C-alpha cells in the first residue's frame, strides 16, 4: 500500500484544508482539499495530498490545485482532482488530469414506476438488463461501427446515435454539453484506438462501471426534485461508464506522444505522471482534439445503453418506455478537460479546467444549462456504492467561486482491490447484498468482492462536506435495488 502523507495540511475551516505553496519550491499556488475533520484522517493514509501539491507546480495553473472530498491516490493527479490552467499564460493540458477513461461519467433516468409495482418484477428486470446491456470483459456491443461511422459519431456526439434511433431528442438537452464537445478531432485518433472502439460503443465495461436500478428514498430539495421529475418511491436507473477501449487508447497514445515533450518546453515536472504540453502547442492541441473525440464517443456509449435500458424495461413492464416516463434526468462527465470561462483577477478568462474524478456543478442561471434547470442549478449525479446510496445534487454559486464549477464524483475508494478480495473470502457478497434488498449480477468472477460496499467511503460524508461548503446542495437520495456489473 502507498506511504502515508506527512506534509503540511492547515485547517482553513470546517470543510477545507490547505497545503501551502511554501511546501515545495516549485509550487505556484496553494493546494486546497475539501474534507471535514473525519474524512481528512483517511485522506492522509495515502500520498494523494502529495499529488495535489505536485499539480500545483503545473505551468499556468490558476488560483489553486484542488481536491474534492472523494480524493484518493491516482496517477499524476489524484482522483477527485481539479485544476485550471490559463492557455494564454502558457498553461498546460495533462492527460493525467483527465484519466485513461476519458469522459467516464454517469447518467440518471427517471421513471413513473413505483417501487411497489417494480418489486415483484425486480429479479426479472435485473436479469433482462443483464442480458440486454452488454457488460464484462471481451463483450462486444450489439452495434458495430466502421471507421467512417466512428469518425461521424465522434464528430457529432450523442445526436449521431439518437438520429439512428438510439434515444429521444430530449436526451440531448439533458446531457452535459448536449452530448458534444465541439472541436473534436477524430482524425487524430490512431487506428489502434478505432480498432478498440468499433464494437464497444453501447457496452458497460467492467471494474467500477455499473447499471443500477434504484428507488428515490428521500427528497431533500422538493423544488429541484420536481424539476428533475424525481418522486419519492419511484424507480430510477443510473448508468456509470465511459469511453471504453477507444478512450483508454487515446490516453495511452497521448502519453506516448508526450514523452520528452515537457522538456522541450522547459517544463520541469515533480512527477513524470503529470506529462503535459502547453494547451496552445501542437502537442496540446492534438491531445485536446483527440480527447474531445473520445469524450463524444463516451456520450454515445451511454446513450446507446440508455436505449437498451428502455427496451429492457418495456419488455418487463409490458409498456413502451415513453409511457413509463423514462426520461433522462441528466448526464455528467467526471473525467474530462474543458475550456470554460472564469473570473480571474476580475477579468473573464478562458481556462482549461481538468476534472479527474470530479463533476461539473454549474449554479442556477448558468447559460449552459437547459431551461428547465436554470432556476435550480445543474444536476450532479454522485454514485455511492451498491449497498448504501447514491445522491443527486445541484450546483451552487459557491462552485463557480471556489472550485471552477466542480464537485465530487462518487464515494471514493478506501480499500484496495486486493484487500477487498481478501475481505470477501468466505463470504457471499451477492447474498449480503440480497439481504440488504439488492439483486446483483456480475460477469467478472471477482467483481462483487472488489466493488463491495465496504471498499468505498460513505458517500453521504463526501456529499455533506460540499453541501456545508455551499459548493452543491442535496436534492435526493437514491437507494439501490438491483445492479448489473461487468
Amino acid at each position, binding site marked *: 500500500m502507498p506511504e502515508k502523507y506527512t506534509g503540511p495540511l492547515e485547517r482553513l475551516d470546517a470543510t477545507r484544508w490547505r497545503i501551502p505553496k511554501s511546501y515545495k519550491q516549485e509550487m505556484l499556488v496553494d493546494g486546497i482539499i475539501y474534507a471535514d475533520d473525519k474524512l481528512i484522517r483517511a485522506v492522509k493514509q495515502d500520498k494523494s495530498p502529495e499529488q495535489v501539491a505536485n499539480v500545483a507546480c503545473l505551468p499556468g495553473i490558476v488560483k489553486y490545485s484542488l481536491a474534492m472530498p472523494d480524493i484518493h491516490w491516482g496517477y499524476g493527479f489524484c482522483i477527485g482532482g481539479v485544476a485550471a490552467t490559463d492557455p494564454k499564460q502558457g498553461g498546460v493540458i495533462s492527460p493525467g488530469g483527465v484519466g485513461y477513461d476519458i469522459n467516464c461519467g454517469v447518467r440518471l433516468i427517471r421513471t413513473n414506476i413505483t417501487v411497489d409495482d417494480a418489486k415483484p418484477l425486480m429479479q426479472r428486470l435485473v436479469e433482462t438488463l443483464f442480458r440486454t446491456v452488454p457488460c464484462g470483459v471481451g463483450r462486444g456491443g450489439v452495434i458495430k461501427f466502421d471507421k467512417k461511422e466512428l469518425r461521424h459519431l465522434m464528430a457529432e456526439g450523442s445526436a449521431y446515435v439518437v438520429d439512428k434511433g438510439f434515444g429521444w431528442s430530449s436526451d440531448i438537452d439533458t446531457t452535459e454539453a448536449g452530448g458534444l464537445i465541439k472541436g473534436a478531432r477524430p482524425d487524430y485518433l490512431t487506428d489502434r484506438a478505432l480498432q478498440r472502439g468499433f464494437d464497444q460503443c453501447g457496452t458497460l465495461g467492467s471494474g467500477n462501471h455499473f447499471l443500477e436500478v434504484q428507488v428515490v428514498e428521500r427528497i431533500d430539495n422538493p423544488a429541484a426534485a420536481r424539476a428533475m421529475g424525481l418522486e419519492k418511491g419511484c424507480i430510477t436507473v443510473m448508468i456509470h461508464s465511459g469511453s471504453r477501449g477507444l478512450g483508454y487508447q487515446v490516453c*495511452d497514445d497521448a502519453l506516448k506522444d508526450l514523452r520528452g515533450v515537457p522538456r522541450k518546453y522547459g517544463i520541469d515536472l515533480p512527477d513524470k505522471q503529470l506529462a503535459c504540453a502547453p494547451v496552445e502547442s501542437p502537442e496540446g492541441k492534438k491531445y485536446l482534439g483527440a480527447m474531445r473525440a473520445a469524450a463524444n464517443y463516451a456520450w454515445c456509449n451511454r446513450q446507446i445503453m440508455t436505449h437498451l435500458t428502455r427496451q429492457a424495461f418495456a419488455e418487463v413492464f409490458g409498456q413502451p418506455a415513453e409511457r413509463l416516463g423514462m426520461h433522462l434526468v441528466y448526464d455528467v462527465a467526471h473525467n474530462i478537460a474543458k475550456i470554460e470561462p472564469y473570473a480571474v483577477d476580475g477579468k473573464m478568462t478562458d481556462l482549461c479546467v481538468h476534472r479527474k474524478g470530479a463533476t461539473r456543478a454549474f449554479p442556477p442561471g448558468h447559460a449552459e444549462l437547459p431551461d428547465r434547470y436554470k432556476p435550480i442549478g445543474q444536476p450532479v449525479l454522485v454514485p455511492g456504492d451498491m449497498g448504501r446510496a447514491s445522491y443527486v445534487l445541484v450546483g451552487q454559486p459557491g462552485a463557480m467561486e471556489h472550485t471552477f464549477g466542480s464537485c465530487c464524483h462518487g464515494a471514493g475508494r478506501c480499500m484496495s482491490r*486486493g484487500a477487498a478480495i481478501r475481505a470477501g473470502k468466505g463470504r457471499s457478497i451477492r447474498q449480503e447484498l440480497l439481504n440488504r434488498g439488492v439483486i446483483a449480477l456480475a460477469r467478472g468472477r471477482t467483481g462483487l468482492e472488489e466493488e463491495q460496499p465496504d471498499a468505498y467511503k460513505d458517500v453521504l460524508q463526501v456529499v455533506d462536506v460540499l453541501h456545508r461548503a455551499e459548493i452543491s446542495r442535496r436534492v435526493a437520495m437514491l437507494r439501490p435495488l438491483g445492479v448489473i456489473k*461487468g
Partner: protein
Amino acid sequence: MEPSYTFFDHTADMGITIRAPSLPRLLAPAGEALYAAIGQLAAGGDSRALSLELQGSTSAELLRDYLGELLILFERDRRMVLRVQVLTYCDKRLSATLFTQAIDDQRSVYHREVKAITYHELRVQEISGGYEASVILDI
C-alpha cells in the same frame, strides 16, 4: 532466482512486482501477471508467431510498452502470448518473437478488464540475483 510475479495493493487498481534472473526473462512472467489480472485465460485456437519491435528510452518504458502490446492482442485480436523469444531487450530496444494462440472464450474465466498499463510507480532495477520490475495496471 526463478522468474516470478506477485500482486501488490493499490487503492483503485492493481500493482505487479516481477522478478527474473535477467532483463529479457522479465517479459514472460510480466505477461503471465497481466493475464492473471484479467482472469484465467485458456488458449485454444490457431497458433501464430508475431514479430515485435519496440523502441524506447528506458527498459521500464519498454516493459510497459510490451505489456501494452499484449493488452492490444488480447482485446483487439482475442489472442494471448504463450511463449516469448526475446532477441534484444536493453534500454533502447526490445525485439522479440511472440508465439500466440487464440483465446478460448468458453473455457476462459474473466475477473476484470484491464484498461491500460500505466507509468505509475513504473520501474525496472537490478537487484541481487537478477532484476525486479514494478508496473501498475489501470482497472
